[in-house]
């Protein structure tokens, strides 16, 4: 076999190896997608988060707003000792007995709210996008509120959004 023919055979062999590797990679990729499974627990997480925030703000049904500084009202997760994360958003609205909003306590990425609204508006969200739909929980309860040294009955509404972890 002359040198030219040997070089040609080597080039053909490299080409065939590359082709086999490429086909193997495609089959592997397809099987990875096919056998991959995502387990969504964000709705459960958002419910647990709401419970923890309510337990922290109003233990035994009494919310002392005077104990929460103006700065803490926008860092409510840190105030409650809950680990901060880009995934979490919590908003607690406090109303008096006439239904007037007297305080809003929150922390997290507020953008999560409009992302949630988009998903809520499109009920026919395609299956492949469902894993990006944030977990959402909402809880409302009558509570006793201490505000400006006055005690009165009111209502608290807590909403928690948990985003995907990717």
């Amino acid at each position, binding site marked *: *076999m002359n040198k030219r023919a*040997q070089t040609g*055979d*080597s080039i053909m*062999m490299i080409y*065939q*190896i590359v082709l*086999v*590797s490429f086909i*193997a*990679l495609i*089959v*592997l990729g397809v*099987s*990875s997608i096919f*056998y*991959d*499974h*995502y*387990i969504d*627990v964000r709705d*459960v*997480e958002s419910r*647990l*988060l709401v419970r*923890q925030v309510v337990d*922290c703000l109003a233990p035994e049904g009494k919310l002392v707003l005077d104990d929460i500084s103006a700065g803490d009202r926008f860092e409510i*997760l840190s105030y*409650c*000792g*809950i*680990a901060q*994360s880009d*995934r*979490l958003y919590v908003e607690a609205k406090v109303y008096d007995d006439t239904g007037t909003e007297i305080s809003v306590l929150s922390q997290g990425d507020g953008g999560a709210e409009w992302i949630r609204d988009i998903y809520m508006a499109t009920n026919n969200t395609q299956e492949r996008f469902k894993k990006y739909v944030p977990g959402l929980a909402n809880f409302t309860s009558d509570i006793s509120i201490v505000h400006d040294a006055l005690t009165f009955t009111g209502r608290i509404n807590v909403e928690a959004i948990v985003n995907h*972890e990717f």
Partner: protein
Amino acid sequence: MRKRGAILKMVIIHILLVGFVFAVFLFATADKINARGVRQQVLEKQVALLIDSAVPGMEFAISKVNLNGVVHKVEIKGGAVLISVEGLSSIKGYPYFTPYDVGVREEEDKFVVMVG
């Protein structure tokens, strides 16, 4: 004779290389099909949710021989639960957000997660 030898050598190398690529592909596919990753995900999420729902003083056990496979290691690191299942190490785990301290202790046949 020399020509035949060269061709045979090339064919053997070719077969070995294709066999190697095929073996790598087969192992990788088998790894995916036995779903260790999914079982790891199930365990990590279960444990993270248990931690989030626990009150101080609670403990729960994870058997080493588990329904989801043999659990080699349970770690609590950087606010996340990392569980190694069937030799598959966890890279980033699953995060929890409980305000309480969380720890793990290893016993003979189980891992005990403590919240408090």
